[in-house]
């Protein structure tokens, strides 16, 4: 536990390094200019949102598979991860809209990628609605976990397939004729540092949220014992 706590604190060094690299070290893209620098925030944030949803799905699978109840808090971890994923998805939409405003002249264009992220958002908002509606239901954890697994199954379709099936103005097909991401070494390494920083940032937030959840459960158990 202490090793995890120490490892996630590397975000205090990694994130400022990523910010400085994004603004000063990485060169601007020729067509997109300095606006391309938002990529070092938009792409890692989008990556974290997908990662958070995958973690919540995997935690849900483990929660449902665990018949002995030895990992009782996994549904809580799945909930926390989905919560982080939802916030990061909103941030992805915001950063994407800013980039769209600069590049396309409008904040929203109903591009396939924009539409698919709205659907992902709605799927996970529905999860929190279900969780809120079943606050005192004993099956809350199981139903929520089943929903998160189904939601995770839809992710590859909306995040990766839809934007590639339908023509899109999203930069990855546009910048590159061969439909592969072309970045020079400095841009690539800056993006890698930014992705690592945001991933560690996600781990740090999840770690704190899980510890808070554990404390909350402990307090509630003590209160029940006192009653």
């Amino acid at each position, binding site marked *: 536990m202490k090793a995890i706590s120490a490892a996630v604190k590397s975000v205090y060094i990694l994130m*400022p390094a990523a910010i400085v690299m994004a603004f000063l070290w990485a060169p601007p893209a020729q067509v997109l200019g300095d606006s391309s620098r938002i990529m070092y925030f938009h792409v890692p944030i989008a990556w974290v949102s997908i990662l958070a949803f995958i973690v919540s799905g995997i935690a849900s699978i483990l929660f449902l598979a665990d018949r002995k109840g030895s990992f009782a808090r996994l549904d809580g971890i799945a909930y926390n991860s989905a919560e982080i994923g939802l*916030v990061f998805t909103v941030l992805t939409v915001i950063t994407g809209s800013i980039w769209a405003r600069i590049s396309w002249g409008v904040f929203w264009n109903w591009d396939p990628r924009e539409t698919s992220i709205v659907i992902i958002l709605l799927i996970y908002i529905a999860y929190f609605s279900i969780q809120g509606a079943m606050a005192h239901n004993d099956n809350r954890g199981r139903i929520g976990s089943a929903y998160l697994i189904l939601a995770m199954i839809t992710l590859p379709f909306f995040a990766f397939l839809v934007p590639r099936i339908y023509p899109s103005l999203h930069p990855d097909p546009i910048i590159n004729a061969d439909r592969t991401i072309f*970045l*020079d070494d400095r841009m690539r390494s800056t993006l890698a540092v930014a992705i690592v920083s945001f991933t560690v940032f996600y781990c740090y937030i999840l770690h704190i949220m899980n510890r808070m959840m554990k404390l909350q459960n402990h307090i509630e158990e003590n209160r029940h014992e006192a009653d």
Partner: protein
Amino acid sequence: MRLINILSCAVLLLPAAGAAIPADRAGEPSVTQSAAQVLHGQDMQKNAPSTEQKQEPSTTLYQVMGVVLFIWIGLAVFLFRLDRRVARLENRAQPKQ
């Protein structure tokens, strides 16, 4: 709720980053224009990022970076303090467990 507070701060940095950019890239073709170039089969090598650009970063870029770093410092202080408080509560709860 705290998480939403933390990340809403992060949201603030992004319009700042976006707002500063158009002034730096006036006269550049938009993505829509480059999409048209793709559709009409023009040379895509032009779209590759330049490695030879040795322009000094503009002051706006420094300003945006300053704002982003400032917001990150705020977030980092908040996270650090939260982490410390949780650790303190954990230590207090441990003997009772």
